């Protein structure tokens, strides 16, 4: 009886540990994605805006001479 109870506790604890691991990996992945990620179709409008600023001449590339 006690053995079975011990086994059940082990299984539950193991499952909890696994769930925590999955949760933590997912949390870190989301954080990393927030921090650094690819630009895709979701950012198309933002990228389009930046591109049009460059094409219209509103934005000029930085140059050392311009700072002087």
């Amino acid at each position, binding site marked *: 009886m006690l053995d079975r109870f011990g086994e059940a506790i082990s299984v539950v604890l193991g499952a909890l*540990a696994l769930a925590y*691991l999955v949760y*933590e*990996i997912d949390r*870190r*992945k989301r*954080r*990393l*994605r*927030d*921090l*650094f*990620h*690819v*630009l*895709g*179709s979701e*950012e*198309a409008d*933002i*990228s*389009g*805006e*930046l*591109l049009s*600023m*460059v094409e219209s*001449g*509103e*934005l*000029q*590339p*930085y*140059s*050392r*001479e*311009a*700072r002087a």
Partner: protein
Amino acid sequence: MARAAPKSPKPATLPESSITQPGLVPIEKNGEPSAASRFRIFIVDSGWNSAARRVLHENFALIRDLQREDPIYVLSRERSIEFMRRHGSRIGRDPIIAVHDMQALEKGGTAGFHGFRLSLGLLHTPEQALLGLQAFARFLVTHRNSADLEADIRAGLRREGLTGAIEIVMQHEAREIGM
């Protein structure tokens, strides 16, 4: 937590307002971007009084020197604020460094993969921000000639995920053995 500066201090090395004026000196040939630049780098910074902003400003000259093949476009504070007002979900994530991969843009426009971005403002300590900026600069330099930049980035992110998993397990083990 980052606090809003009541008045933005004049940046020491990132002269934002001066570089968005029309009619600037064209970029010089020696060591500056050419028509064949792989990347276009954009910096959006609305001016939060944050560690990330200070780190970016203090290291901007070095970033410029490391990335001299690619043009860097710095949006002025006013333009960045306007930008953030239009894209509200990005507020608090700036300074944001967005990099357009011109090779990908020429192939498929903005509909598919066309670059990558670093939301530096999410890093709250100067150490984290500096490490993030250094990793970003390293990535740009080492992947300039990449044939498939998207695959490289996704592989890197998967690797980070795996490293993270190992780290979690190691931390757990360390706690278990009382380190």
